[in-house]
């Protein structure tokens, strides 16, 4: 476990190089270039606004500006989650040449895939900050929660990515399973709606470890109040457990990668 972390640090040049490759390839020969980083969050926000509009028709309450801001704040981390889980679970299978011909710690593949997506997330976040400032969403000390929440999200994504990349190498079913789950997970996660809308059953929704992160971001960025430390703690512990288990199983399976891919 610690050995895996140490070997990644030892190969940090390679990690950065593979990350750079993924980012570079994505934007090379494309007309939109870095606008792609905004494309997926924008689509999610647009979809969210449609749903909010539908809500407002039914309830006969006008669509509030705050509703749109909330959706934007939640869409970005959700877009990061979806694209990095998708991208990292394919990261080993997409590089068969490197897996069978050259040795270096394989864990670098899913990790660099997540970092490459993180790059898009950062670009989109910068744009979002500008928009939020323009819309008059103020700052407060509660914003200090943001790094912790994003950190938990990254740990969770790394854990899932590392585990799924190895699983996908052995069983290609995993890829389709992940696709289906990622497509519909947005309905089970409070992105377009708030967990509190469900009243007493809200806790059930928060069991999904991403839900407390998204709700937490809403609370500290939009409402300027502290998120529930209990649920944040739950997400944090779960994310760390997932990451530890993922690294362990990855390292154990690693010697069989070359002959099983």
């Amino acid at each position: 476990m610690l050995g895996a972390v140490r070997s990644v640090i030892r190969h940090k040049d390679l990690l950065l190089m593979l990350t750079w490759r993924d980012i570079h390839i994505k934007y090379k020969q494309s007309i939109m270039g870095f606008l792609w980083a905004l494309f997926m969050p924008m689509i999610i926000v647009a979809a969210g606004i449609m749903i909010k509009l539908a809500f407002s028709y039914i309830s006969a309450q006008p669509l509030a500006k705050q509703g749109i801001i909330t959706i934007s704040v939640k869409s970005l981390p959700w877009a990061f989650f979806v694209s990095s889980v998708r991208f990292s679970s394919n990261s080993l299978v997409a590089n068969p040449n490197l897996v069978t011909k050259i040795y270096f710690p394989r864990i670098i593949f899913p990790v660099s895939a997540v970092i490459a997506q993180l790059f898009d997330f950062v670009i989109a976040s910068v744009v979002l900050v500008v928009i939020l400032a323009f819309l008059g969403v103020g700052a407060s000390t509660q914003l200090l929660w943001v790094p912790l929440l994003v950190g938990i999200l990254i740990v969770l994504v790394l854990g899932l990515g590392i585990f799924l990349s190895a699983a996908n190498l052995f069983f290609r079913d995993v890829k389709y399973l992940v696709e289906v789950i990622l497509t519909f997970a947005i309905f089970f996660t409070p992105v377009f709606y708030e967990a509190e809308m469900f009243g007493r059953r809200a806790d059930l929704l928060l069991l999904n470890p991403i839900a407390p992160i998204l709700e937490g971001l809403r609370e500290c960025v939009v409402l300027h109040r502290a998120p529930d430390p209990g649920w944040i703690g739950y997400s944090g512990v779960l994310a760390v457990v997932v990451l530890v288990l993922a690294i362990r199983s990855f390292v154990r399976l690693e010697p069989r990668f070359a002959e099983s891919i």
Partner: protein
Amino acid sequence: MSDFVLEFEQVSKKFRRGQLHDSLRDFLPSLVRTALRRARSAELGEREFWALRDVSFAVPRGTAVGIIGPNGAGKSTILKILTGIMNPTSGTKSVRGSLSALIEVGAGFHPDLTGRENVFLNGTILGMSRRQIKAKLDEIIEFSGLSEFIDTPVKRYSSGMYARLGFSIACHVEPDILVVDEVLSVGDWAFQNKSMEKMKSILRGGATVIFVSHNLKAITELCDRAVYLDKGRIQSTGRSSEVVDAYIRRASEAARVPHARDAEAVIDRVVLRGVDGEVGVFRPGEKGFVDVVISSATCDKPLAVAIALRDENYNMFFYIDSARLEAEPFQLRPGESKTLTFELDMHLAPGSYFLNAALTRPDLDVTVDHRPMAASFVVHSDVDVRGVANLYPRLTRS
């Protein structure tokens, strides 16, 4: 502490034939099966075979060891275990020092990136740091001879250019132990010479080199020692020229399978020998004898025996048949057997060569029997003549 930088002890590796379970539907039943019956690593299950069996060898610091053998002998499996890409089923390996492998040139190339970008990508994949690559960038580009195209995406490269860039990066890594798998055969003739010189200078620099190749001449030239592998087992080890000799003799024996079953006449045996009997290594100008033993079942028509020599690239550069030598085809009575001996002066440049033999009917211009790889041999020389013919060049200055 021993001075062996690399040791294999009783290494075995088991593989499965056919498909592995690739989806959950196949996996679950097989999981149940293995849970019920614990597979022991020393036994072969159904559809399993040994890619390597009890392979032991040790490589002292600063030596070059060649690994030779036919396709499927287990050479690449050894390299994959050596580099850590695979684990052995049983046995141990130990590696002391940094190891870099050139198993396939340009394995990490991305087609959309330019040559220069791929130098950085591939260099880090092979274990160099960014700073090392920056320091050597000019040298690498210079060696590849691609400076004009270095900012072009490699997807626009020809396969030769691709391989040249790959080799140039790989040979500038400078590890303690270098593992090379058949990469010296890339590029054109001039680039191959340059690569060979580079390998020699790496060796002079004190690196330990493991070298897998079908180029037997390169093996004898570069390596002090060699390992001959066949069907996953070590057949012989020792000085490289002796091991190459043993391999050639075995390989040409294996090629002696009857070719034509119901032909009217057949080649029974082809033997290549020197003055002191059967050998696989010649020096320029030495005499070589090719015995072709033929027998006839039903044929009473005129026959001729032809032999041809081919170079490493299978280009034929020498051909003669008995009809041309004797001006007259000969005849065999049904059931009769005959040996024709061709005497040759091996005025050849250093390299490895193949001997073909054929039995023909000159009257019909058809081939009755045919041995495409009857024997192979190596020519050694102090003067590094290139090409096929050895014209014994001397130099005078005036």
